[in-house]
């Protein structure tokens, strides 16, 4: 193993220092996707392992991680035979590489006069081979460990509370992980699985579910509450005026002198990140609110993607809803964009349920009614009907009756602690919900759940969808939408 270690360090030592320094400068959060894409292309040839191994390699890869323990357990199935085959494969590779380097050393004298190009080519070849070997090594080692983690304080730009190194006993692991970390800490392995499009900030809570980022494959930043709620994020260094956008700041700076009017000063600061240079680490954000699912100390932590996501999330879930709809005077929002979106559609939701929920589409209403006992379609202009009266009273009940909901959440949390693998965990959840008799389901009053802050349901949303599909034959997507529909 000695030689590879050396090789690694030789190869990457030089570039890593520069890349990390570069990373420190970067504030732009959106350009990172480009990086990923480029790295995928680079890496295509070296990918011969199974995806599971790939994922593990990513585990070791990134900065500060609050590892999702369950996932780590599921992904790694220890099999000596595969291990052996992997090792022998690596041995072969190393020998090949050794031969190649020998050859190069032998020819070194003769090649003095040759062009630089050839040398570069050779270097590239060796780099590629080395990369693949290293990945192999890491993944093989990774299969031994439940999960590997390390922290990388140097890369954190924001206020950073370093979480405990190994919060779980299983991970207080042996030297192997340590050495691995040493090898790879400055190592930006490509992330083939992460292919995320740029999405609208507003949807972050919903879209985040689909992200398959493995714990450890990204670095986590956490802003403080004051920073999140600050109206301005960009301040003029001269007069101290604050701006919401960097571009506005740059426009403002022009007034402070001619040196700020040059094209370089006016350019978007992160534009110099050219595809050819080294890929940077994905950044994900943690919510500073303790106990929140988006907080990195949460057991089922789900990171937020961008600063804007953080802002919106924090405002939506941990702040008062201060903006009231001027049309219906009932709906309240904490994010003004949400209010504007709502106002666009307010009054257009003509499909009404007896529980008071409105829907913009008839099929959503019927999906809702099919799901809940005792809810009926409310016929418009029939306020005097007894059914409508009943419905509103039921709605009030549901608003007051959170206890059922809380119990529900607790149930899912205990399930998680039991370290059930993810799919099995889902099954367990379904059974749990199925065991709800229709009646008790009714008394729980899920009908009013749209009124609750969203994260309460983040845990259970996917299983909710499955419940819908299993119980009522409605497609899960539909059910999910009907839920999210009203929560906006």
């Amino acid at each position, binding site marked *: 193993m000695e030689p590879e270690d050396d090789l690694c360090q030789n190869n990457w030592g030089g570039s890593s220092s520069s890349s990390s320094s570069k990373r420190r400068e970067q504030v732009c959060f959106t350009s990172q996707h480009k990086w990923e894409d480029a790295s995928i292309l680079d890496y295509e040839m070296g990918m011969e392992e199974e995806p599971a191994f790939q994922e593990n390699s990513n585990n070791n890869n990134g900065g500060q991680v609050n590892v999702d323990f369950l996932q780590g357990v599921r992904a790694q199935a220890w099999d000596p035979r595969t291990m052996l085959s992997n090792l022998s494969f690596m041995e072969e590779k190393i020998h090949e590489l050794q031969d190649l380097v020998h050859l190069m050393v032998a020819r070194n004298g003769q090649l003095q006069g040759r062009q630089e190009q050839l040398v570069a080519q050779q270097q590239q070849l060796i780099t590629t081979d080395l990369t693949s070997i290293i990945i192999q090594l890491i993944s093989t080692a990774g299969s031994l460990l439940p999960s590997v983690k390390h922290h990388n304080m140097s890369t954190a730009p924001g206020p950073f509370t370093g979480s405990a190194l190994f919060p779980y006993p299983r991970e207080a692991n042996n030297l192997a992980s340590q050495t691995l970390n040493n090898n790879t800490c400055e190592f930006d392995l490509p992330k083939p699985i992460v292919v995320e499009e740029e999405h609208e900030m507003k949807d972050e809570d919903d879209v985040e579910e689909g992200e398959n980022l493995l714990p450890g494959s990204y670095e986590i930043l956490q802003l403080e509450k004051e920073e999140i709620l600050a109206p301005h994020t960009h301040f003029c260094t001269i007069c101290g005026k604050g701006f919401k956008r960097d571009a506005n700041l740059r426009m403002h700076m022009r007034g402070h002198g001619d040196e700020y009017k040059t094209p370089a000063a006016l350019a978007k600061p992160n534009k110099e990140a050219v595809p050819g240079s080294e890929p940077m680490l994905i950044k994900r954000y943690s919510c500073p609110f303790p106990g929140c699912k988006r907080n990195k100390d949460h057991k089922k932590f789900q990171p937020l993607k961008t600063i804007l996501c953080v802002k919106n999330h924090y405002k939506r879930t941990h702040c008062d809803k201060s903006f009231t709809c001027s049309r219906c005077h009932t709906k309240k929002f904490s994010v003004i964009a949400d209010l504007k979106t709502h106002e666009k559609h307010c009054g257009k939701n003509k499909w009404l349920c007896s529980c008071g929920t409105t829907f913009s589409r*008839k*099929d959503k209403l*019927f999906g809702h*009614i*099919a799901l809940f006992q*005792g*809810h*009926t*379609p409310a*016929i418009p202009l*029939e306020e005097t*009907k*007894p*059914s409508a009266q009943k419905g509103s009273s039921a709605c009030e009940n549901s608003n007051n009756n959170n206890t059922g909901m809380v119990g529900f959440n607790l149930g899912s949390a205990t399930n998680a602690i039991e370290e059930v693998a993810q799919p099995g965990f889902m099954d367990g959840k379904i059974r749990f919900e199925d065991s709800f008799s229709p009646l008790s389901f009714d008394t729980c009053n899920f009908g009013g759940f749209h009124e609750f802050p969203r994260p309460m349901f983040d845990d259970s949303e996917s299983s909710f969808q499955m419940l819908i599909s299993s119980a*009522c*034959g409605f497609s899960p997507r539909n059910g999910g939408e009907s839920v999210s529909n009203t929560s906006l």
Partner: protein
Amino acid sequence: MKKAKQIQHMISKPFDLLSEELVFIILDLVAQSPSDLKSFSLTCKWFYQVEARHRRSLKPLRAEYLPRTLTRYRNTSDLDLTFCPRVTDYALSVVGCLSGPTLRSVDLSRSFSFSAAGLLRLAVKCVSLVEIDLSNATEMRDAAAAVVAEAKSLERLKLGRCKKLTDMGIGCIAVGCRKLKRVSLKWCVGVGDLGVGLLAVKCKDLRSLDLSYLPITGKCLHDVLTLQHLEELLLQGCFGVDDDSLKSLTHHCNSLKNLDASSCQNLTQRGLTSLLSGARCLERLDLAHSSSVISLDFASSLNKVSSALQSIRLDGCSVTCDGLKAIGTLCISLREVSLSKCVTVTDEGLSCLVMKLKDLRKLDITCCRKLTGVSITQVANSCPLLVSLKMESCSLVSRDAFWLLGHKCRLLEELDFTDNEIDDGGLISISSCRSLSSLKLGICLNITDRGLSYIGMGCSNLRELDLYRSVGITDIGISSIAQGCCHLETINISYCKDITDKSLVSLSKCSMLQTFESRGCPHITCQGLAAIAVRCKRLTKLDLKKCPFINDSGLLTLAHFSQGLKQISVSETGVTDVGLVSLANIGCLQNIAAVNTRGLSPSGVAAALVGCGGLRKAKLHASLRSLVPPSLITHMEARGCAFLWKDYNNHNNSNTLQAELDPKYWKLQLEEDIEL
């Protein structure tokens, strides 16, 4: 002394000794004839009270008297308001108040002018309401449906032709009435997939679902076919149900027994295969007027249901010989086959089919014009259990084919030989079918009195006889029928030009007679009619059109004796105002047709219209429309009477009648019309 008096007292009131239960049992037997029940209740006060307590079902003629009627009959559980066109909210609240706890079923299918408010009273007060028929409530909206949903115990609901109902209303009903077992949404064109789907999701007890002519697609059928107890599913004329929407359908609806997919134009073999895939216990399948060709391929889609299938209807389909053969081999337990209007059916195909079906009970080959005597001989030979054979317009079937039928199929009960070549020999053979109850011999020009007299002697159970335009029949034949068939309920002697009053007098012996059609019989007079009117107390339907000698005196007798008459046609007769006005005496008269009756004046018609309180339909000459006061017409329409203004221009009345009476000429005319 005292004791003797008591005994005497008891003898004078022997029914006092009987318990009420025993009297009720007696009344159950009496109740078979409504008039007997009426006489019973009029005997004494005690009988009156007992009868009032005994009666469970009511069919009132006027909604105005509902308060009194329901006060008298406190135990009413079934209320049939089909005779009351105008049922107001007040009437419904009266029903709710007076017989709320006992009422189980209400029929409002022929009524209107009630609203959601009235229905609410009904739904709230009648806690045990199980069945409600709201068909034809074309003005009913979702609000009313939401009110119906308050009747929580509802099990049977009919909403046919409630065109303004939408998914929202059905959704309310689905949520409110969880015990629904039988639902008919036929012609509710505003109801779609969502409403039906919700109904299937919420009402798990559904046994029967009629979705005919609904704009549904296969989408909701996914939910519908998951119902555990569904036995009957009617999808007649659902154009939206197509192969694509049924592609992913897999179900295990083992309870399904009856499937009607007739007139589903966009449903072909592919969709049908998935529809039938899980219905292993299907007994009845209706594919009439489907667009697919009934071929060998098609028959293979029946593979899964073939074991239990008892009845199949393929009316109007293009049927191939191979297809019929395959059906015969696959579905050996078939008991009923209908191939009506399948013009492509050949002797070979039908012979192959019936050869395999030893258990065949009912066969309908109406208008299969290619069939000849070979098929009928095969049917007679292979299906000894045949009960019903309908073969109207199989004119290529030779007369000797019928001879075998009567000898081989002794269990025949229903026969339709309309427009066939059957002759007296055939009738003689058929007369050996003792249980024959319905015989249609319309336009059978080869039959005479001789054959008919054999029927009269042999078939004592005959209930229905159709001799429309069978011109060989005279009084002798009819009188032999009247003598032998005392259970006769329906007879049609239209255009039998030799019939006279003698036939009517002899027919008056059939006391069960309900329908009497003698259109275009030029010789019958009021005397014959009087005989019928006096002795046939159950007469409900009477057609006297084109009987020129019928006049006021006949109608006066009718008005006096036939209190059960519902429908009468006196067009082109000698009836005047007097006769028409006298008809107002008949309480339950619903339909009057009096076109081209020259003796009628506008004022006479107006008086008759006002007088007939329960009138639903009046067919009158168009010229009267402008002469009758418009306010009267609006008044009548508000009462629930529909007008049909006819404008015939037959100047030479007698000549056309003569021409119509000649069957050959008439048939020629008919064929010309068809060709046009």
